[in-house]
């Protein structure tokens, strides 16, 4: 008889039994994992009665059995089609959570840049890794980031020292393969951008099959004074996958953190970017583009925490929803008591292409200072009949007209991404997306 999971509360705790297989390589990591496991036991699993979880169901997650991804023995297919030409010499690849040295390259990076696998660096007691790991996650009472920590092993570590500007974008490619069993992965990245450094990171999740697995990634980035980090995240997990991700960024004086998150894959996905201002005069951008159809669910819960004076922040979150897909947005903007002269922009725009699609959107301002400019808003709209008529009267067929309008809607996010091949890839994704939605319309 199949084993029945009675309780979502014990779901993650039960999986901790896989933890033992990781121990013994690094005392540091053993301790980190132990601490993570303790937290998993103490933090309650999210419930729909929790305000932050009321719009999505995690049932798909906890009603299955899973194997630890790194224990799987699978042959790796050719993945070179997913490489970015700009990152031929600056790439780290992880397959089912395991660092793949043969697929990774670092020769295009300046010598001063430290890049490596977290597990390897931990076994060498790398001082910076030990000092900074877990410092920027800042996800108190979050069982998923604790679970990630409880399985901390392979992962990406990048350190860009003072004054170093890295031209080549660093591509962090997390590949999940097909497998006979459901499995789980806990991707992890730590990026340290020292004073006046500059780096571009492309965090890229790809599912090669249609199989079920879950991934709970944690991405930590620290920007010291005048650092400039451009961070693009692309999520194209398998259409049966569950992807619940956290990004924690600390931004010091005169630093600029620019992030663009593209959500295209997974049956259920959630992004929780948390940007925390650490000093005066910073800039940050937390833009997002979500393209979902079928029965996909995408949830973005972001926090922009303005803690000091003089910050400029920008969040444009755009969603295109088709089929029975469901998009959730909750953007929290905090402006602390002494954080004056804050200029914050937030907008969530939704393009609903079907009758059965669903949007929940909740911009949320909590302002305790008085000299601030915060604009926020949310819109839900459809393709305008008049726009379609205009383009069709110019000879464009239905598919071309829709594609052009969806592309135009999405472009505002895409065009700011500095890596050209990523832009192209996203235009391609928009194309595939509109093609699919036309198909479903014709068969409906």
């Amino acid at each position, binding site marked *: 008889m199949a084993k029945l999971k009675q309780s979502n509360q014990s779901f993650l705790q039960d999986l901790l039994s896989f933890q033992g297989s990781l121990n013994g390589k690094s005392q540091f990591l053993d301790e980190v994992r132990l601490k993570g496991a303790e937290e998993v036991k103490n933090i309650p699993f999210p419930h729909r009665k929790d305000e932050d979880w009321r719009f999505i169901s995690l049932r798909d997650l906890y009603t299955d059995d899973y194997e630890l991804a790194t224990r799987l023995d699978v042959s790796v297919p050719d993945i070179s089609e997913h490489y970015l030409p700009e990152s031929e010499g600056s790439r780290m690849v992880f397959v089912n959570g395991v660092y793949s040295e043969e697929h990774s390259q670092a020769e295009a990076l300046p010598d001063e840049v430290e890049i490596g696998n977290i597990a390897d660096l931990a076994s060498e007691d790398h001082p910076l890794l030990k000092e900074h790991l877990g410092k920027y996650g800042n996800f108190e009472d979050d069982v998923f980031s604790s679970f990630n920590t409880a399985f901390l092993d392979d992962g990406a570590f990048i350190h860009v020292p003072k004054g170093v500007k890295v031209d080549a974008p660093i591509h962090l490619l997390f590949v999940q393969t097909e497998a006979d069993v459901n499995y789980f992965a806990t991707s992890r990245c730590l990026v340290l951008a020292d004073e006046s450094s500059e780096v571009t990171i492309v965090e890229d999740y790809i599912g090669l099959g249609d199989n079920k697995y879950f991934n709970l990634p944690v991405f930590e980035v620290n920007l010291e004074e005048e650092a400039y980090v451009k961070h693009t995240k692309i999520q194209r997990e398998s259409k049966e996958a569950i992807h619940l991700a956290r990004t924690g960024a600390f931004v010091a004086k005169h630093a600029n953190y620019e992030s663009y998150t593209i959500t295209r894959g997974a049956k259920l996905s959630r992004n929780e970017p948390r940007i925390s201002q650490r000093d005066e005069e910073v800039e940050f951008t937390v833009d997002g583009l979500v393209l979902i159809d079928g029965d996909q669910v995408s949830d973005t819960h972001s926090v922009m925490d303005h803690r000091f004076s003089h910050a400029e922040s920008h969040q444009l979150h755009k969603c295109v929803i088709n089929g029975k897909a469901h998009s959730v947005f909750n953007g929290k903007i905090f402006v602390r008591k002494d954080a004056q002269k804050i200029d914050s922009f937030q907008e969530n725009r939704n393009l609903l292409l079907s009758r059965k699609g669903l949007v929940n959107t909740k911009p949320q301002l909590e302002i305790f200072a008085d000299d601030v400019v915060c604009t926020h808003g949310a819109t839900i709209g459809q393709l305008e*009949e008049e726009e379609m*008529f*205009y*383009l069709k*009267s*110019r*000879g464009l067929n239905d598919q071309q007209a829709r594609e*052009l309008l969806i592309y135009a809607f999405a472009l505002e996010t895409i065009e700011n991404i500095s890596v050209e091949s990523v832009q192209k890839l996203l235009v391609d994704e928009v194309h595939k997306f509109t093609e699919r939605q036309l198909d479903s319309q014709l068969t409906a």
Partner: protein
Amino acid sequence: MLEVKDLHVCVEEDPSEKILKGVNLTIGKGEIHAIMGPNGSGKSTLSKVVAGHEAYEVTQGDILFEGESILDLDPDERAHKGLFLAFQYPVEVPGVTNKTLLRQAYNTIAKEQGREELDPIEFEDYINERLNVVDMKPEFLDRSVNAGFSGGEKKRNEIFQMAVLNPKLSFLDETDSGLDIDALKIVANGINQIADEEKSVVMVTHYQRILDYIQPDHVHVMLDGKVVKSGDKDLALKLEEQGYDWLTDLASVSVNGEQN
């Protein structure tokens, strides 16, 4: 080229709202027509119905283009046959450049008409040459379609699109309204360059003003959903001097009559 026969049209969402009540109109090859009339007479609706706007329903009559009914065709299929509508209120499409839209439109029409499509370099040459028709700078091509354009720029862009797409028959829906005299001259000059023995143009307008620069072969007056009078360009001058009142008794069903 175009025959509108006893065309009755209502609003799709509200069939009781009848806008066209039996329009008859014949446009020959190479002819320039002007359709005039006060607000609400149905002239803009006629243009949109010919182009295939889905908000209207044809309840009676037919529209023949080159001898075939086009009522069952989508707006894009009508464009492929060589129909064009210059919009009264051109739509803004932020994020899509004029060049992108026009190349896609041009090549789609070319393909449907069995002509050769142009590659990006050939199209660049072609489109740059067409800019001269409306006296526009090449930078214009890389701007988003109508986004942030002034009213005059939007109207010029409509004529530019017409110059690029090279339609057989164009309806220009109040292309002259909102233009200052300089812009009006440029637009009129553009239209004159495009119209030739092969191509027909229908100008829908309130005012006689643009007809100082474009000589129509025929002028029609629409009132209350019908063409009530047709004539030559002198008719436009008469309308300019005397207004529409002298024509109202020609409308067989007056507005009041219908309400009763």
